[in-house]
């Protein structure tokens, strides 16, 4: 069989696959909690020049049924441009470098000077400079790995944060979703 896999969300004190975010699974929420479901900890929209960030959300390709194939070119991209004032950023993190969101090096510092809409302004995510997501795929792991595993992450983690700046004029004071857009996770299997 071809490998059976899904895009999974990982969290916890140690790396744990907790949410299948495909199909009937949990939808992405970019909050300031170490989970995808809490809606009471949204990201506050700054009222002056600044960008505030969500907690790190670790995404990865998770194989549930093994195959003789190899998965490579693991990538993430946006389906279209984000609303003004919104930004999504990712960095590639080896599973051995996982740090729980919100703790020590995985905490995102709200920046008092940068605007998420400014080109070239990217946060550091778990010690790795982030890449601003766009409609051009960000290949977070070109090598990937064997799909001959069961219930296991293949390749690296895609550590992703959501940023909102004072340029966002959607109101509400806080947000936890980069709504009205799509996120495309892709990989090659052979």
């Amino acid at each position, binding site marked *: 069989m071809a490998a059976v*896999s899904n895009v999974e969300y990982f969290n916890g004190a140690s790396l744990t696959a907790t949410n299948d975010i495909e199909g009937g699974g949990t*939808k992405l929420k970019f909050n300031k909690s170490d989970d995808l479901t809490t809606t009471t900890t949204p990201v506050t929209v700054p009222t002056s020049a600044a960008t505030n960030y969500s907690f790190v959300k670790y995404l990865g390709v998770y194989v549930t049924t093994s195959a003789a194939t190899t998965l*490579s070119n693991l990538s993430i991209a946006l389906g279209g441009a984000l609303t003004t004032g919104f930004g999504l950023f990712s960095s590639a993190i080896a599973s051995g470098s996982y740090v729980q969101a919100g703790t020590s090096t995985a905490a995102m510092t709200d920046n008092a000077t940068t605007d998420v809409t400014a080109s070239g302004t990217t946060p550091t995510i778990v010690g790795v400079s982030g890449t601003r997501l766009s409609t051009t795929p960000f290949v977070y792991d070109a090598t990937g790995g064997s799909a001959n595993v069961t219930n296991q992450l293949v390749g690296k983690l895609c550590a992703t944060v959501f940023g909102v700046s004072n340029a966002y004029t959607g109101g509400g004071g806080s947000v936890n979703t980069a709504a009205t857009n799509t996120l495309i996770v892709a990989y090659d299997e052979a």
Partner: protein
Amino acid sequence: MTPLNPAVAAACPDAWLWRAVYADGTTLDEYTEEPGGRIQDHGFAEVDLPRLSAFVLIPLRAGLASQSVLLDPKRRMRPIFFRRRLSVQSMDGGEMMRHTVTVLGYQRPSGKRSIQHFMALFEDGTTIATDDRATLDAAILALAPTLP
């Protein structure tokens, strides 16, 4: 062409199943039936590339055509094959879609360069050919989410 074993065809969840055809006439299918009836899958890495004379995609769904790359060993041609799996997530809790685009092609050396040709095969029968990897990636990303 040797017809597919129905049990083998049933094991493949994809729109095409690959067959490696060697110069001596033997073949390796992506899935094989082992003694006792067990179905064994094979990765592309198991294909013995130097012995290869053709790499064939056999359609498993109505309306799709067979696709082949004929390999000339004098030109040191190697096949390119992978399936691009895409998971499209709506961030506002809406619909999620999965797509698979099968890519077939070849590469061969030309002086100090490597020439590559790709053909992206969509499951609705759409085909896109290009010799540029970035163009291929962009076309798949743009078109796949629009398909049913």
